[in-house]
């Protein structure tokens, strides 16, 4: 059996290699199209656009990276940053699977389970999008039906409601501070739609600080077990 170090190194090598390939492929697509059709945008306008989008998304990406990779472990992290849809799909999925498997978070076992969860959910999403492309015409009336519209609009509250039903009950001490701050913030500051993501690092940091204080004071008790439900 490979020891942990050797395995980790092989994952980092594989992750870096495949991520670099994806990165190049992503950039090759506009390059090939621009060259083939002779529609390369003027350099100045291209830089202006890139500058604007980078200003918005570089800080968000750094925050996502710092927040999510410790939850996922190494190998799942490489996959999520290629496949996307982190907060609305991959993170809840990985955390639920780690919890259900009854393995300790951040252990090697959790790393394996998170990778399985992220890989399988990516494959399923890809398959569903593929089916969506093939069946765009017949699906449209269902997905755009007025009757079902509220169901699709409320997927995020339904997801995070269910997540909080489980997690807040399990570790309410950790939930109190960030929830309180966020609620105050939303009451007193108009947070524009779609910019919530920018709040995640700030609230995450405050949440960690408060957890540290609670921990130092001995207010957080070691959970009896990693509650695996029926495990």
């Amino acid at each position, binding site marked *: 059996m490979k020891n942990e170090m050797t395995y980790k190194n092989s994952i980092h090598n*594989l992750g870096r290699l495949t991520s670099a390939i*994806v990165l190049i*492929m*992503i950039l090759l*697509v506009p390059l090939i*199209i*621009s060259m083939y059709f002779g529609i*390369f*945008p003027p350099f100045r306008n291209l830089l*202006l*656009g890139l500058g*604007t*989008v980078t200003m*918005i998304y570089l800080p968000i*990406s750094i925050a996502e*990276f710092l*927040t999510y990779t410790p939850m996922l472990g190494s190998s*799942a*992290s490489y996959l999520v940053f*290629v*496949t*996307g*849809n982190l907060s609305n799909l991959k993170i*809840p999925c990985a955390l639920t699977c780690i919890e*259900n*498997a009854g393995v300790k*978070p*951040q252990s090697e076992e959790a790393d*394996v389970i998170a990778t*399985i*969860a992220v*890989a*399988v*959910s*990516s494959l399923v*999403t890809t398959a569903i*999008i593929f089916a969506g492309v093939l069946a765009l015409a017949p699906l449209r009336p269902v*997905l755009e039906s007025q009757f*079902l519209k*509220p169901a699709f*609009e*409320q997927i995020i*509250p*339904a997801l*995070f*409601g269910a*997540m*909080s039903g*489980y997690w807040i009950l399990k*570790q309410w001490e950790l939930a109190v501070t*960030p*929830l309180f701050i*966020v609620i105050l913030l*939303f009451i007193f500051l108009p947070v524009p739609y779609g910019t*919530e993501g920018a709040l*995640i690092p700030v609230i995450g940091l405050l949440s960690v600080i408060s*957890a540290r204080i609670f*921990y130092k004071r001995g207010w957080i008790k070691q959970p009896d077990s990693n509650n695996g*439900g*029926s495990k």
Partner: protein
Amino acid sequence: MNYLEVANGNLLYFLTAFVILFVILQSLIFLKKAWLRGKEIGLSTETMREAVKTSAVFAVIPSIPIVIALIAIAPVLGTPFSWMRLSVIGSQSYELIAAGIGASSMGVKNIGDPRYTAQVFSNSMWVMSAGIIWGLVLCIFVLKKYQQGIKKVHQKDSFWAEIMVNSLFFGMLSVFLGRPVTSGGISLYVLLSSAFVMLIFTWAAKITKIRWITDFSLSLSMIAGMGFAVLFSQAGL
């Protein structure tokens, strides 16, 4: 040349297929590696199978909004590129914003503007593609070091490391709870009902020790929440 001839052209379909196939291959390679490693470190096949089942079922519902986003984006940006963007890294909210920035930096108001030419489309493609790479870049250059740092915290005090990661997670959870909780209305009712259904499932799983309840409770609670959303809106709430 109408930009849609480029955007729905065969070349772009071909490139899209290529990228998506590679990403599928990457997922399969990682899946296989994780599976073998799991066996090496003593995880039972059953535990890993449960993870496959849970994640496969869970992924279905949150994928629906992605298909809806595709329906919204495909007519303006063409099917293949929208498809690739939503399958690789992207997310619904990002794509339209980035495509719009690509247009506005060419002096065109937005996608769909009569002056949205093939060249403007190519600028949108560049901006959308290059704007989203940062997470990947960080993984390539920083992830190993960062994970080693986390590992050090873990070795020093594993309980604190666990608390730290969980409190990061609660920070994220709180941010997504903020709007429905403060704005009230149907989102709040849905949130509360799916939380309540989840509580019942968690409790039922503990009492009955039935495995599938644990595996599917999150998905079922979500579906229940969505069902309530239809019910509440029919009731005029």
